[in-house]
């Protein structure tokens, strides 16, 4: 007899979770109403969300648009070289201000009534203001900013009240994230790979960070073995991972093994991952620096912008090497890990069934959330699920 849930299957996420900490009710992946709750409690709640890196808007006037849940954002670099994040909405009647994905502007103009905003958000012009409401003051109608903090250029925003960013990431995560961002965050954008996954954001999230290498035959065929390392979690759901990555020869599998050479990075820190709650994955594998900015579109669609970077101090040769590696190894078209994409969708389909997603490898207690896990344990995901459960207000069986 296998484990079954005791409640009738409705497809609706249960409000009470099983007492066993390694069981996740599968309904959380396919419940459309739950997604609306997640928007309120997580995406618009007391959590920081990564929306970009300053290197994506390197020049004055550069901008990028992005979404936090359904909230449209406009990230722009001002004349004072400051990167600001605005709500992408004209302060007059709420018209979407900028429709391009990215570009460069001298100012932002709303075509509806020609309100004109400077790069720093100031309302510079609004034709016909003499006839506006008696209490209208132009200086009160600059673009609204979303609360923003940066860490080495990584742009994080929130609509709630989380602790200050560094505290929220946690002391234990900062050195790894620093290494991942090239030590000082002076990155240079190489370009994007964008992808739409037919998967709930939690299905994406559970599998896009570090997972046991069983899935990736590519790693084994390339003789690409991770060496010593660690996996660390925080109580608010982040995962920090580092592992040595021995320079691989390709094991005769590759006709052109130059693709997998190490040229710039330290093999001691060959594989570096920071996964921040709820759904930001950042990785550095070999010479590939990759920040994945994800958008939860609905309970069944997740969009991810894989942004790849070089470091400002790289030699031209190293930049060319990073471009080749970044364009071929990871992500939705990568020779090594394209199967992740297929897994996200299969996780999503397979979880539209009764019962639980079960975590096994590394589980030592059924009642305690594991905080001390080995490099290859799948239990690294459990603190994140526990944090999710608490933020969403789900009780455990037997809990008052």
């Amino acid at each position, binding site marked *: 007899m296998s484990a079954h849930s005791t409640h009738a299957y409705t497809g609706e996420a249960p409000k009470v979770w099983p007492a066993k900490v390694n069981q996740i009710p599968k309904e959380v992946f396919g419940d459309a109403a739950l997604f609306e709750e997640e928007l309120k409690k997580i995406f618009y709640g007391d959590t920081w969300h990564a929306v970009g890196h300053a290197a994506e808007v390197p020049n004055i006037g550069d901008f990028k648009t992005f979404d936090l849940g359904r909230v449209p954002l406009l990230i722009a670099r001002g004349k004072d070289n400051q990167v600001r994040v605005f709500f992408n909405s004209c302060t007059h009647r709420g018209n979407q201000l900028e429709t391009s994905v990215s570009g460069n502007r001298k100012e932002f103009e709303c075509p509806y009534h020609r309100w004109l905003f400077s790069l720093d958000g100031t309302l510079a012009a609004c034709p016909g203001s003499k006839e506006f409401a008696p209490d209208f003051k132009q200086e009160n109608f600059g673009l609204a900013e979303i609360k923003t903090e940066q860490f080495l250029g990584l742009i994080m925003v929130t609509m709630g009240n989380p602790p200050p960013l560094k505290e929220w990431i946690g002391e234990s995560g900062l050195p790894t994230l620093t290494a991942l961002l090239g030590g000082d965050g002076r990155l240079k954008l190489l*370009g994007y*790979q*964008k*992808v739409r996954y037919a998967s709930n954001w939690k299905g994406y999230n559970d599998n896009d960070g570090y997972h046991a290498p069983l899935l990736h035959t*590519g790693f084994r065929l390339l003789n690409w073995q991770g060496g010593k390392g660690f996996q660390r979690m925080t109580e608010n759901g982040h995962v920090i991972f580092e592992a040595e990555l021995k320079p691989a020869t390709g094991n005769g599998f590759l006709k*052109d093994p130059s693709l997998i050479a190490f040229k710039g990075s330290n093999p001691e820190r060959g594989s570096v991952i920071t996964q921040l709650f709820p759904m930001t994955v950042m990785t550095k594998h070999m010479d590939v620096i990759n920040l994945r900015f994800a958008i939860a579109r609905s309970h069944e669609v997740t969009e991810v912008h894989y942004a790849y970077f070089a470091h400002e101090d790289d030699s031209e040769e190293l930049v060319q090497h990073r471009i080749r590696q970044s*364009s071929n190894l990871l992500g*939705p078209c990568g*020779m090594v890990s394209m199967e992740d994409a297929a897994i996200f969708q299969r996780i999503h389909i397979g979880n539209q069934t009764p019962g639980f997603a079960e975590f096994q490898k590394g589980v030592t207690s059924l009642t305690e959330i594991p905080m001390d896990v080995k490099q290859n344990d799948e239990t690294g995901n459990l603190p994140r699920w526990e944090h999710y459960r608490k933020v969403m207000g789900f009780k455990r069986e037997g809990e008052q």
Partner: protein
Amino acid sequence: MSPVSEALSSTSTTDKAAKALLPLDDFTWNSWSAMETQWRVERLLSRYVACIDEDDLENWPEFFTLDTCRYEIITRENVERGMPLALMFCTSRGMLVDRIVSLREANIYPQRWYRHIISNVLIQSVDAECLQVQSNYVVLQTRRNGQTDIFSAGKYLDRIVLSKGELKFSEKRVVVDTHRVDTLLVAPI
């Protein structure tokens, strides 16, 4: 000028590009007339997409020159912003072979079928060594449940040379309009 008025008044870049791309109607290349060259180029493109659509991928590298070649799938978004990152980027015959061996032996993905449609094959320039050819493509993708979707639309920018009597790509640049990939991209385009 404000951004909006600027956008309204400027000539579109596509118009400018179209003028630069006027086809050459009358030339000879390697003793072939313009018409015969056009026919041979179209034959090459047809054979190339048939190779992919019929899942004869082991022969796909054969369409490229042996010594130096370049194959790239890059999004229009990255191209327009001057960014070099690609979706696939092979700079040697070995890398072309590695791509195919990898998808056959290492990668796990649900089977899908491609169907390429090519049109507007335009020889843009001709010199002693090579032809520069642009064409449009659409890839229809059919899943195992029978559903067909447009998977990718874009253009081929090809540099074609004559190698031992056969036309080969010394460079093939696939510029993808559909810059958001649906789930994953396994096979070449």
